[in-house]
């Protein structure tokens, strides 16, 4: 048998039929649904008199619009409230399982999938959300789709797809102390650019990736889309199986044994070919900070804000100038001299228990700078519970952080958590686009411990030699 990559094995196992031009009807094992990208899909389904083919293969949760303050008070914004109510009605009408806003299991869709054991290796998983790539951390083929495709999957449990190309991103060596998966993925995007992965599915390989925890792998795969790739994947191993075992929706008993055996056959065969390979050395990755309005506009914390005059061509010069104007930054300013107003620890990139544990360990005994407003938004109700059992909430609150309810929150500011015009934020989220965290707001993407240090000092610091 020909040697195959992880991607090829999963793709081939999900082909229902192929058109002469290669267009494939691909079977979808699981779909996740949230309130923002689904109402129009359900509406069309109703209008066409169609029913979901496998309602039990879909899990829904409201996350984008939910308030992170006291939920007993309901949702102040009537339009947000209506969208969440619509999701609940649609799930009821179509027999789809939903974790409602007041369910302790509610959380960010890409946090709860893995947390519940809904996400499994070898699966095809979709969601009307570009950060669906997160689930690739388990060795699944997971990618974001539009609303019309959400409807398509509901109606047919399939999608019409073109086979993407494969890109291996190999990270070898040993990461510097206090450098994390977030720094690795930001460095990767800095290298390949925000369109470098367009048309590809990325498989992350190498000693650094193998050494990452499942949470780290999720952070890594989460931002694949920021490099243009719809999906990023990591081959499943013992860590993957240990993470999944015993979770509420994970297979159990003889099905578990059978599944684990199948997962062992998933990793890329030796001799299998990728369409492209990119290599990075871990030793060259410093803690990363974005300075611009696209995730590829990134540098090490020991670097400086770039000078548009030094750009190789007119287009990069223009986009750099525009980004610096928006960000209110002067060329050649050392990154560590950039002062901040807000800190956001959360999002589907960095809001899992391990992120919070690590961040808390750096906060202990310290105080948020007077000039800074800082908040922690756990990724799910269960992450929040776990953190509270471990006393992490107390550590954060004692230091001056706000401790909130679970949701997407200030990653995209669809709820009340918003940056004001001109405010500068150190954020553990995934996008630093203009206005992403609020119109006129300025976002710097960093790892959780970089965010914590910035909160305490009021400006970015090199976490490698902090305290």
């Amino acid at each position, binding site marked *: 048998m020909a040697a195959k990559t992880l991607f090829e094995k999963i793709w081939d196992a999900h082909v*229902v039929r192929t*058109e*002469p031009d290669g*267009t494939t*009807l691909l*079977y979808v*094992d699981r779909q996740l649904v949230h309130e*923002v*990208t689904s*109402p*129009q899909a359900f509406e069309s389904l109703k209008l066409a008199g*169609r029913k979901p083919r*496998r*309602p*039990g*293969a*879909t*899990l829904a949760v409201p996350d984008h*619009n939910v308030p992170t303050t006291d939920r007993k008070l309901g949702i102040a914004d009537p339009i*947000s409230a*209506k969208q969440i109510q*619509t999701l609940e009605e649609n799930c009821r009408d179509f027999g789809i*399982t*939903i974790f409602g806003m007041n369910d302790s299991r509610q959380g960010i869709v890409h946090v709860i999938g893995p947390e519940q054991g809904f996400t*499994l290796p070898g*699966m095809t998983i979709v969601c*009307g*959300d*570009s950060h669906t790539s997160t689930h690739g951390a388990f060795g699944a083929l997971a990618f*974001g*789709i*539009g*609303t*019309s*495709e959400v409807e*398509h999957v509901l109606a*047919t*449990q*399939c999608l*019409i797809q073109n086979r993407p190309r494969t890109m291996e991103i190999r990270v070898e060596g040993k990461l510097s102390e206090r450098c994390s998966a977030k720094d690795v993925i930001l460095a990767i995007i800095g290298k390949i650019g*925000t*369109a470098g992965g*367009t048309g590809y599915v990325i498989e992350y390989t190498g000693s650094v990736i193998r050494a990452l925890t499942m949470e780290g792998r999720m952070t890594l795969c989460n931002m694949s*889309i920021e490099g243009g790739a*719809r999906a990023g994947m990591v081959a499943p191993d013992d860590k993957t199986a240990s993470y999944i075992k015993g979770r509420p929706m994970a*297979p159990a008993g003889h099905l*578990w044994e059978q599944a684990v055996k*199948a997962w062992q056959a998933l990793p890329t065969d030796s001799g299998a070919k990728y369409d492209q390979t990119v290599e990075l050395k871990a030793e060259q990755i410093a803690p990363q900070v974005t300075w611009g309005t*696209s995730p590829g506009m990134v540098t090490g914390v020991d670097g400086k804000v770039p000078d548009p005059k030094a750009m190789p061509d007119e*287009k990069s010069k223009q*986009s750099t100038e525009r980004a610096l104007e928006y960000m209110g930054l002067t060329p050649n300013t050392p990154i560590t001299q950039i002062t901040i107003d807000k800190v956001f620890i959360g999002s589907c990139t960095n809001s899992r228990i391990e992120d919070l544990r690590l961040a808390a360990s750096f906060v202990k005994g310290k105080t948020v700078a007077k000039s800074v407003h800082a908040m922690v938004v756990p990724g799910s109700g269960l992450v929040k519970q776990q953190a509270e059992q471990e006393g992490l909430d107390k550590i954060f609150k004692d230091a001056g952080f706000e401790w909130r309810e679970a949701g997407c929150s200030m990653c*995209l*500011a*669809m709820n009340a958590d918003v940056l004001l015009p001109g405010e500068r934020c150190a954020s553990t989220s995934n*996008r630093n*686009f*203009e*206005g*992403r965290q609020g*119109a006129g707001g300025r976002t710097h993407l960093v790892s959780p411990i970089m965010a914590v240090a910035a909160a305490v000092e009021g400006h970015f610091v090199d976490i490698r030699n902090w305290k």
Partner: protein
Amino acid sequence: MQSFTTHTGLVAPLDRVNVDTDQIIPKQFLKTIKRTGLSEGLFYDWRRKKDGSQDPEFFLNQPRYKNATILLTRDNFGCGSSREHAPWALLDQGFRCVIAPSFADIFYNNCFQNGILPIVLKADDVQALFKGAAKEGYQLTVDLAAQTVAASGGATYRFDIDPFRKDCLYKGLDAIGLSLQHASAIAAYEKQRISDAPWLFTDLTAR
């Protein structure tokens, strides 16, 4: 879905790279449960000055582009969020075609679901079209069957498109209807798969 055969229309140039879907339509417009009326949010922040007033410099605020139906732009258009609200907003504004040297995958795909034709042309060709679009009233004719973009009295550019996508867009086919024609193949796939990988079929039951 509206079919796309040939289209002649006014060109509006947006000379920026990496235009993300957060710029095409910001978050506050994603709270809707409808697909219509989204042109109000199209490039909402870019249309305005810092004080909130309309920026007369922004291309869509200029009377000459009021009736534009072809958007001309640069690399990696539509990157970022998967929100289909982006093509919905473009369509609601009247755009039927977007021309760029490259597109982000999800946006590209979402266009086809909505009767919008995204056309990839070589960067040099796009540059030539930008030069042409400097002239007021610059129009292009797009012929999907022939896979060409033609400037009146000017050059003709050929573009590539997957045959399947082309056919669906040309005929305005309902993609779900097409897949449902293969219901028996889907059922056969499921039957085999349940036996090979039964743990994938432990479905949730809604309470």
